[in-house]
C-alpha cells in the first residue's frame, strides 16, 4: 500500500487564516465581558452567593409581611431581593452565604425596630449557629440558633444606619458555613427560614438605640456588635 500524496491548497490556508483572525476576535470578547457588576460577581468571579432579583422593594412601613405561601408576603413578594428562595409553606429559605431583603423609601430621620420570626435547619445536637444581621452594611445584631425551634428576633436600626442608603434599606442575614463544598462547588451553609417580618419606624426620639451600630454613632469608631440572642 502507498500513502496518497496530498497537494496543499491555497484556499484552505486562506480560510484557516480567516478563521484564526475570527477566533482571536472571539477570544477578545471572552476576555472582555460587558456585564453588570452583580452578574460579574455571581457568574464570573463567583464571589457573590446569590444573583439579585429585580424587585421594587415596595413595603408598607410598619405593616407585617408573612412569607408563608398564601399570605400577603407571598402575593407581594416585592422585598425578597437576593439569597432567599420563593415563599412556600415554611416561609422563605436562604441559600448561599447570605439572604437579603430590600425595603424601598424608608422614612427619613427615624430609628426602626426590625422584628421577624425565623428558624433554621439545625438542632440541639449541632453546634450553635450565629446569623449576623446587618443593615446597609452595618452590623445591627446576631441571632444565635441553638435548637430547631422558632426564633423571634427584635433588633434596633438607628437612624444614621438607615440614612446610609436613603432610597432603600438593605437588610442582610449572613449565615455560617456548615460544611465543605459539594459537587456543585457551593459551600454548605445554614438555611435560615424567615416566616414573617416587620420593620416599624419608631417615633422621633423614642429609639432604644443599644446596638453596636448605634454606639458607633455616639462614641465614634465601631466597637464589636453586641451579641443579641433571640428567644426561642
Amino acid at each position: 500500500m502507498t500513502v496518497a500524496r496530498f497537494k496543499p491548497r491555497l484556499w484552505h490556508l486562506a480560510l484557516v487564516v480567516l478563521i484564526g483572525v475570527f477566533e482571536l476576535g472571539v477570544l477578545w470578547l471572552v476576555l472582555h465581558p460587558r456585564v453588570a457588576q452583580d452578574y460579574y460577581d455571581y457568574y464570573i468571579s463567583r464571589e457573590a452567593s446569590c444573583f439579585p432579583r429585580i424587585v421594587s422593594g415596595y413595603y408598607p412601613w410598619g405593616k407585617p409581611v408573612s412569607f408563608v405561601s398564601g399570605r400577603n408576603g407571598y402575593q407581594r413578594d416585592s422585598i425578597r431581593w437576593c439569597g432567599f428562595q420563593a415563599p412556600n409553606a415554611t416561609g422563605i429559605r436562604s441559600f448561599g452565604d447570605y439572604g437579603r431583603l430590600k425595603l424601598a423609601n424608608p422614612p427619613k430621620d427615624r430609628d426602626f425596630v426590625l422584628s421577624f420570626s425565623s428558624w433554621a435547619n439545625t438542632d440541639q445536637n449541632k453546634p450553635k449557629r450565629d446569623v449576623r444581621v446587618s443593615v446597609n452594611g452595618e452590623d445591627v445584631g446576631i441571632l444565635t440558633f441553638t435548637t430547631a425551634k422558632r426564633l423571634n428576633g427584635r433588633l434596633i436600626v438607628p437612624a444614621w444606619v438607615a440614612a446610609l442608603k436613603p432610597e432603600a434599606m438593605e437588610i442582610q442575614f449572613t449565615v455560617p458555613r456548615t460544611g465543605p463544598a459539594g459537587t456543585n462547588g457551593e459551600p454548605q451553609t445554614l438555611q435560615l427560614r424567615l416566616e414573617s417580618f416587620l420593620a416599624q419606624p419608631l417615633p422621633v426620639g423614642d429609639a432604644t438605640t443599644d446596638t453596636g451600630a448605634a454606639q458607633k454613632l455616639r462614641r465614634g469608631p465601631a466597637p464589636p456588635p453586641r451579641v443579641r440572642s433571640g428567644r426561642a
Partner: protein
Amino acid sequence: MDDSFAEPRIAAAKRWTWRIPAYILLPFYLMLIGVALRYAVYVRLTGHWGFSDYLRALCVYDCNAYERLALNGYEGRPSGFDKGDANNWAFFPVFSIMVWALNRLTGLSMLVGGSILSLLLTVWGAIISWPLFERKFRAYFLFCFFLFLGPFSYYFNTLYTESLFILLTCAGFVMLRRGDYVMAGVAGLFLSATRSTGLLFAPAILIGAFQNHLRDGGRPLDFFKTLWKRTDLMLAVALVPVGLSIFAIYLYLHSGDALAFVHIQRAWGRTFQNPFGNLWQSLTVQFLTNKNYSSISTDLAFGLAAVAGIALSAAMAWRGKWDWAIFSLFAVLLPLSTNTYSMLRFVVGIAPVLIMAAVLGAERKWLFYLLLPALLILDVMLLPTWTGRSYYLM
C-alpha cells in the same frame, strides 16, 4: 457498444433503483413501530386519545426549554429556578433554529414540528451511520432498535438535541473514515453549535487522519513530518470551533458575556472540578453518606452511566478506533467534570458509545436475542417514569 452487455446493466440499474436497501427501511419501520407502541401505552395508561397531548406529555425538562427557545429566542436577565439565577442561555441554538424554521415553513406547532423533526433526524442519523457498522447488520439492527424502541427512545421523540447530535456525529465520523476531512470539519462546526461537547470532534479529526494514514500503509513519523502541508486537516480542525464561536458572539451581543452559556451553568449547580472525584462521589454517596443499600439513587445511576461510557470508550480503543474512543471519553469526562446530573442522557447522546455497545451486544446471538425484548420491555415500562419527570432518565 455491445447491446448484449448494456441491457442487463440497465435492467440491473432499474432493479437497484426500485429496491430500497434494508438499512434505509429498517430505521423507518422501527421508528413507526416505536411511536405507535408508546402512543398505545400512553392511551392505555391515561385514557387520553389526543396525539398532541401525548407529545406534550413526552415534552419534559429541557424539551420545554428548547420549545421556548424556538418560540421566543434567548431570554434576558436570569430569573428562573428557585434561586432566580437560571435562563435558557445554556441551550445551544441549532436544533431550536431548525424547529423554528420548520414552524415557519409548515405552520406546525413547535411541539409537533419539533417532535417530528427529532424523529426524522434520528432516522437520518441511523441511516448515515450504516458505514460505521462495517456491514454488521445485526449490530446495526440493535443500534436502530435501541434508538426507537429502547429505554431512552424518549430523547429521540421529543425536543431534545440528542437526535441532531447523533446525526452530526455519525456524519462526521463517516466523512472522517472516507478521508473527506473538510466535510468532517463542517460536521464538527454544526456539532459545536449543537452542544459544547461538539468541540471534541477537533481532536477526533486529527486522530482519524492519523489512523487513515496508518491504514494506508504510512509510517507514524511521516504523518507528523507532513502535517504542516495538510491544509485540508488544518481547515477541518479550524472549522470545528466556529459553530460555538458564532454562538459566543451572539451571547456577547445579547448579554455582554461571550461565555454566558458556561457561566449560567451555576444555576444547574455545575462548576469545573475533578471528574473522577465527582464520579467517585456519585458512586459512593448513597452508601457512605446516606447509608442506603436498598435502592439505586439517581447519583448512583448517573455514576454507573458514566462508568459505562468510559468502559465503552476503552472498548473502542481496544478495537483500534481511537478517534471514536477519544471523542467519547472526553464527551463523558467534560460533563462529568461539572457534576454527574443527566449523565444517562449525555452518555446515550454519544453515537460511538451506542454503536460500540450495539456491536458488542450483537456479537453473540444469544445476547442479541436477549437484549431485544429487554430493551422493549424497558421502553414500555419507563414511559410513565419519563412523563412523570423522573430525574433518573434526565
